[in-house]
């Protein structure tokens, strides 16, 4: 029974995992309005303010800029201003945030 519920989504088994779900939410909330760099499946990179996400990891970035291919050097290619952009979860390859902005958001720091 328990496994079945798990597949149906976390909503039904809130009781035991309450703390982890709250923790996760706090983690994500700590990232809101931080600069985020997302690499997409087609090789492009978007940089913008993290505004919104959901269970499928769809992410909305504000004042987003699109960079082509190379992610490490900003010298190559000018960015294109996109404004508000939503990246579907299944197109997200990697997510990065600036190190300094992690200082005040707990949870993510531990790893790095």
């Amino acid at each position, binding site marked *: 029974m328990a496994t079945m519920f798990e597949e149906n989504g976390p909503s039904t088994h809130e009781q035991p995992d309450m703390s982890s779900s709250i923790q996760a939410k706090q983690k994500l909330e700590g990232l809101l309005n931080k600069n985020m760099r997302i690499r997409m499946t087609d090789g492009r990179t978007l940089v913008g303010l993290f505004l919104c996400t959901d*269970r499928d990891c769809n992410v909305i970035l504000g004042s987003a800029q*699109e960079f082509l291919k190379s992610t490490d050097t900003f010298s190559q290619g000018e960015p*294109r201003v996109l*404004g508000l952009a939503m990246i579907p979860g299944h197109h997200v390859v990697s997510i990065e945030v600036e190190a300094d902005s992690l200082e005040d958001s707990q949870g993510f720091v531990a790893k790095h």
Partner: protein
Amino acid sequence: MVIKSSVEDDDSGWGLGIPDKMKNNANWVDITHDFKGACKELNLGELLHDKLFGLFEAMSAIEMMDPKMDAGMIGNQVNRKVLNLEQAIKEGAIKVKDLSLPELIGIIDTCFCCLITWLEGHSLAQTVFTCLYVHNPDLIEEPALKAFALGILKVCDIAREKINKAAVFEEEDFQAMTYGFKMANNVTDLRVTGMLKDVEDELQRKVKSTRSRQGEQRNPEVELEHQQCLALFNRIKFTRLLLTALITFTKKETSSVAEAQKLVAQAADLLPSIHSSIQHGIQSQNDTTKGDHPIMMGFEPLVNQRLLPPTFPRYAKIIKREEMAAYFGKLIERIKAVCDVINTTNLHGILDFFCEFSEQSPCVLSRSLLQTTFLIDNKKVFGTHLMQDMIKDALRYFVSPPVLSYKCCLFNNHQAKDYIDSFVTHCTRPFCSLIQIHGHNRARQRDKLGHILEEFATLQDEAEKVDAALHSLLMKLEPQRQHLACLGTWILYHNLRIMIQYLLSGFELELYSMHEYYYIYWYLSEFLYAWLMSTLSRADSSQIAEERILEEQLKGRSSKKTKKKKKIRPLSKEITMSQAYQNMCAGMYKTMVALDMDGKVRRPQFELDSEQVRYEHRFAPFNSVVTPPPVHYIQFKEMSDLKKYNPPPGSSDLYLAASKHFQQAKLILENVLSPDPEVNRILKVAKPNIVVTKLLAGGHKKDIKVLPEFDFSAHKYFPVVKII
């Protein structure tokens, strides 16, 4: 140089909310795993967001990797350096002198294609200004290229000015933004045409010197050079003629229009040889199979990227060179057609001209040229006639109102003059707007026609008041004459025309569903065309009355016999056509009702709306009109109720009746003396429909519930009914 300055000095400009440190490779930390894991903890449908950011804001986000919204998705990744003109010259990426003939031909052809793409609604920055040479022709040393670059800039500038002035475009037609590019404003038009002419003469000398002489052994190299020189010569000449024609359009004299027509005709003559010499020009050199954009020497599609709004596609699709000559050919045909407007002197004729011209869905440039040719500087028609005089002439032609007759005492009456003059002045603006509406694209026209009905309703009211005032004045002076509903009839006529066009254009724009056809055709046949015909016959009898008075006055003075020969009534053609249209609509209405009875019309499951809601929406603009009063849904249902007949007709009776209407329309049209294309188009629908409805009346395929098809290919407003 363009306002856009070099890359280095405005680096900070696009930082938009992004701290500088980021550009210096800020310390990015990968959190992909944690982030995705944390997301999974969220509930289905739960959004994690800031207090100030909600679902509403989220909706306006563009979706990445969606081909419709994400313009940067396909084939946009390039690995090359984007250079502007100065940089390209410094790096030796483009030549500014000693260009070969094939290079010049290729550059010019690509420029022409860009020009066409711009005229078809793309932005200048992504079309003509992808050519680096036009960014600053002063830097070009090659005389032919310099003259051409200036020429194309002038063409763009004049076209833009014309289109802006005519104001008959919407964002889907035309991008008026120039992004601060200089359009060769520092050089006069005359200087540019002069430069083009010099280049042309120089090339002509070369063409002549390389021409084959009799009996001479032809050197293939010389022959090739000859061909290439000729190709370039034709292109430069075409540019000059196009530019000169556009310049001529800006002159105020009426004669200039005829001159422009001559010039574009000359330009059109060059097109076949331009088309056949396309292969002489160089082609783009990079590999486009990997989705990259074709790059020509001298062109950089990405050079203006930063001037564009965020969601613009990175590249505009430039038309192919092979299609260039055909497009120019059609453009010139349209411009020639525009020039013919000056041969029409009557306002009604001009209005018809605009309607007919617009029916071919012409391009924005030709539409704008038509507008600016009609009203020069918004004051005088063709630069010579006052709009007020045109309106008075139209009134005389249509209803011959006594107040405008030289033989009537009202003509010189002070008060009557005041009345009519102020009425005519009030007419000016709505009629100018009506003509301007016909310059817009087809879809926008419909919307605007719905709105202008309000203005005409006000005019209608005034016309009736002026009629009444003039009538009482006339009764005192000449009791045997009348001034009843003259001006009113004229305005009503235009009202009805607008309403009819509004409804009919819905068919052309494919707005109506099949189950809506019946009430649209009903409204047209039973109501609008019926009103139109009675309006026309009232105008006709008003003309006859006025002519009789004139005749009597003539007889009184001289005993000379007036001609007994029957004159063709001026409005007879229009009356006949209205009868034909009415019969076509009536036939369609009855066919639709009968098809519905047989269960051959698919009706929607009305859940949130009803037929009444749709009906009211379709005729909503008519609510502002007083005469004719709008027919509300309840009235329509009562009037079209078949139960009022005894016995109520069945589907076969209705098919038969429809067949008779189509037959009637055919008869009327076949008797038209000089049939125009429109007559033939309607006949093409009427004939098959006679047969189909007769078959249906006989019970053909009555039980088969296959839905009929409506084929609008023969006529925009009336379909051929097809039962399969």
